């Protein structure tokens, strides 16, 4: 019991730090994240620049704040697409069943048996690279897993007495689906969303690292890591800052989710 609490507290602290940086970053950053300064290229962390400066003399701490915001934006938008479309598909197929359900679930099985990175790459190569395209690509890739989880929950719930009662009382299908059943699966949905968010953060980082996601001069955690790679020897702090930011975000969320 004690151990559970400890992990939860650790997770809450980590997420608190990340959220603080992201929220403050909306209104204030110590320096302009994109302001270049040729005289302070690749300087080590100091009081003036907590995380040091990069190859253009930009303040890494400010860029991490800005970059986390971009990464959060991409992750939230991705999860929103996955959740909304996935819930709709899952709710209807799970509730009604039938031929459409079996066809959709076959396709779903086929899609999920492929590694998501490969699928994302194919979609990106169709839509092209960029911040909004990566959201679209990742969102589409996320839909099947959400749909599958929601569908199985609806299949269980639709046999429950409260649903039968509601039906007897003449509630419409839409009302049953979204007013009666949806709140009952919210706990499971929340857990799926948090895991999805973590995966989205990691996926954004990966795609931007490959140069297929967020484009310069915009900062995102993955983009920063990709730029930092060339300076690993002369300015190792450049890679450490955004990398650690990703780790504490994902770790914090998974600790909270695990011990909830």
């Amino acid at each position, binding site marked *: 019991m004690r*151990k559970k609490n400890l*992990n939860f507290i650790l997770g809450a602290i980590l997420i608190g730090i990340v959220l603080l940086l992201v929220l403050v970053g909306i209104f204030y950053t110590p320096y302009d994240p994109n302001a270049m300064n040729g005289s302070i290229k690749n300087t080590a962390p100091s009081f003036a620049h907590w995380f040091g400066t990069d190859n253009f003399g930009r303040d890494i701490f400010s860029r991490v704040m800005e970059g986390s915001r971009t990464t959060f934006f991409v992750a939230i938008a991705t999860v929103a697409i996955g959740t909304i479309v996935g819930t709709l598909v899952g709710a209807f197929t799970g509730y009604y069943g039938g031929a459409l359900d079996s066809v959709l679930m076959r396709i779903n099985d*086929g899609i999920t*048996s*492929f*590694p*998501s*990175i*490969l699928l994302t*790459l*194919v979609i*990106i*190569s*169709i839509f092209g*690279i960029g911040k909004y395209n990566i959201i679209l690509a990742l969102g589409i890739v996320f839909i099947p897993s959400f749909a599958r989880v929601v569908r199985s929950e609806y299949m269980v719930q639709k046999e429950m007495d409260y649903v039968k009662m509601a039906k007897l009382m003449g509630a419409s299908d839409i009302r049953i689906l979204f007013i009666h059943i949806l709140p009952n699966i919210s706990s499971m949905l929340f857990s799926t969303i948090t895991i999805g968010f*973590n995966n989205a953060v*990691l996926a954004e*980082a*990966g795609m931007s*690292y*490959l*140069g*297929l996601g967020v484009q310069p001069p915009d900062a995102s955690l993955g983009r920063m*890591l990709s730029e*930092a*790679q060339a300076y*690993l*020897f002369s300015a*190792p702090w450049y*890679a450490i800052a955004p*990398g650690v930011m*990703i*780790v*504490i*975000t*994902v*770790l914090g969320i*998974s*600790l909270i989710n*695990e011990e909830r």
Partner: protein
Amino acid sequence: MKYIIRKISTLILTLFIVSIFTFTAFQVIPGDSVLSTLGMDASPEAIQALRQERGLDENLALRYGRWLGNVLQGDFGKSTQYNMEVGALVSSRLTVTVWLALLSIILIIAISIPLGILSAMKEGGIIDRMLTLLTQTMMAIPPFFLGMILTLIFGICLKWFVPGNYVSFSENKGKFFAYLIYPAIAMAIPKIAMTVKFLRSSIRRQMHLEYVRTAKSKGNSKKDILVKHVLKNALIPVITFLGMIIADVLAGSIIVEQVFNLPGLGRLLVVAISSRDYAVVQAVVLYIAAIVVVINLFVDVLYRIIDPRISKEGGAE
């Protein structure tokens, strides 16, 4: 036997659908490969000529049929960027990726299974708790960031390898593996963490079942029960899980190859996507998809051999 035939026909069907998807997907894209070769200000005659040469002026089904026919004979067309046969290009890059994935998978199996058992045996103890926190942390690290950390530690600080360098398999086998081990570790660590977590909960689930209680009441020690009874049952779901991990590792190498500057399939794919070299993208996607599908089949069959209960259930339908 009937089962295997059915599975193989599903496999062929899946690959067929993937091939249609990969082919048509790249036909609807606005910027076509002709323009990217000739540039935006090419004369209409030159564009038309190259379109004809590449067969882009015929209808979709016809082009798909011809493309598939060629692919089945091992001809994936020509790379617009490298100006060489895609088939040759892909197979020259395949060695690195396959060895990298293989090395990584060996590491995953060799490390995660003992650790998972250890964690489950000491359930609730200090080792178990530390392992749990450690696995949570490792799962949170993106493999490419791990790769950069390994480069920093072993490449730059300890100078055990030269970052960005690569020795080909044919050149020197020992050095080839010496360079491959770091990216393999980077890819393996998060997956090891996942597998440990999965195995631990799989063993714990078994520990609460009746047969364990029976074995306990007969006076067997916890270790005996674990080794003789539980492990056999607990490892079965892990096989399916590992099948998924293998597919993930293969795809994950796309990113990690970039960190270590390895000339594998992943690098080829990323460069091809950026330069809209679609013949290459199609070929790489098909290759990886084929490997993944075959691995899935293999895992499925293995699963049935190990756990005969499933094949009985399957036979009934």
